[in-house]
């Protein structure tokens, strides 16, 4: 894993959060090479106890999106999400990148507060 190009940009964080190294690597790998996000960078969040990823979906997109990696084995509480949104001041929504051991990453959109469904 250390030799893979998706590892080097987050190598420091992988050592700091060894319990989540697998999920962080898989989400970073997916965003960097498969989804090919622009301006992809890692943001350390103490409240989340991990690194979250920030970037734009395409070159022409202006909106900066956040992805919080987590594993299927974890159980996350609403208080935890509250803390994440408090630390990410001004961000209205994040994507939760849930990883599985077969390398599937499933993304769920989480918004701060109630969202009206689109027409």
């Amino acid at each position, binding site marked *: *894993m250390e030799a893979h190009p998706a590892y080097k940009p987050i190598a420091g964080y992988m050592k700091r959060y060894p*319990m989540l190294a697998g999920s962080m690597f898989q989400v970073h790998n997916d965003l960097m090479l*498969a989804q090919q996000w622009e301006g992809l960078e890692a943001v350390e969040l103490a409240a989340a106890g991990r690194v979250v990823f920030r970037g734009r979906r395409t070159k022409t997109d202006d909106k900066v999106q956040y992805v919080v990696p987590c594993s299927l084995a974890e159980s996350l509480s609403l208080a935890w999400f509250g803390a994440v949104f408090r630390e990410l001041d001004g961000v209205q929504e994040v994507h939760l990148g849930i990883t*599985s*051991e*077969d*390398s599937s990453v*499933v993304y769920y959109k989480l918004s701060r507060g109630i969202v009206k469904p689109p027409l």
Partner: protein
Amino acid sequence: MAEQTKAGKKNDRAERNRIYAHALPAIPSSSTKPWLGIPLWRTPSSLERPRVVGVFDSATRSVWIIHSEHANLLWRRGFFGKGSLSRSEPTWLARQTGSRTAEEITAKRREERKTFKTERARAIVAAQEEAEAAFAAGKPLPAPFAPEAVRQAIRSTPEPGDASTPPPVLAAEPPEIEPVEDLEYLQLTLQEAFFLAWSLDSLRVLDAVTHNPLSLPALWRASHAAHYMPPAPQLDLRFDNPFLVNYVAYHHYRSLGWVVKSGIKFCADLLLYKRGPVFAHAEFAVIVCPVYEDDTDRATSPFQLSNVDPFSWSWLSTVGRVNSQVQKTLILTYVTIPSSRRVNLAALDSPGCLAEFSVREVVLRRWVPARMRD
């Protein structure tokens, strides 16, 4: 894409049957046994086992197959593994170089469906307005809305996507394109890897650091150890290790002939395919429910196995709804974890301890008395 002709579909089916002819990596290499010089019948004299090589990765709890020939072999003979950058089959390099892949066909189909839906909505609104106008004017109502007509209209209009797709050869592009390094690997779960190595003898797993091949006992221990946070190979093994519990279910269904894949997209643990994902959608979604024979084992467990407690009705209905929406039958697979007081922990040194586990299935189907009279 225009509707496929019958001959086109037949060709596709024949092609798929040719590519995915072997259900397992090991194929029988037969020889004809002549009798009095006359070749009578073929007897499988041996199994040709491919020696595929993978690397153990503890952090992602998986085995990585780096060589693309090995990856293709494992995928085509039994649908083992998943491309790390693709939906199922490793197609990342093909997508980078512009070849047509399954992901692109799906994307195009979704685009067409979206166009159809907006056109249909527009037609419905137009028909409503027409009916209202006719009613207000006192004239007889026009003919009822015909969705088939809308579908024909969509088919005949040129696709908006065609104009935007780039032509295959761009005049401005330099004649030599740098070869893209294939950064994709096939990722096998630890259960798939152990099954391939032990039951099918088709995989050799290398240690991540030393690159020495792991023996079967070493692979067994490493797979258990990977679930301890941080990975601890020197700790005593336990019967309720998540690797072992999931391996029991995986081995059970694989040995019965099902193709077993991850069910994360459908709120389940496993998906069961009769032949493989390329042939038909999975008919069954499996949720593995571990059951402790002895509750003290659970109290002393360092693991947090999911679905051990009884479910709430809301959760069960949610999962049932998700799967009935995609026409899958939900199966609850109860795996009984043997008590460490009854069974000697030494049994955990080998997969022989699988005999101590029991697997029971419960099929869950939603029944509506008003509608299901038969």
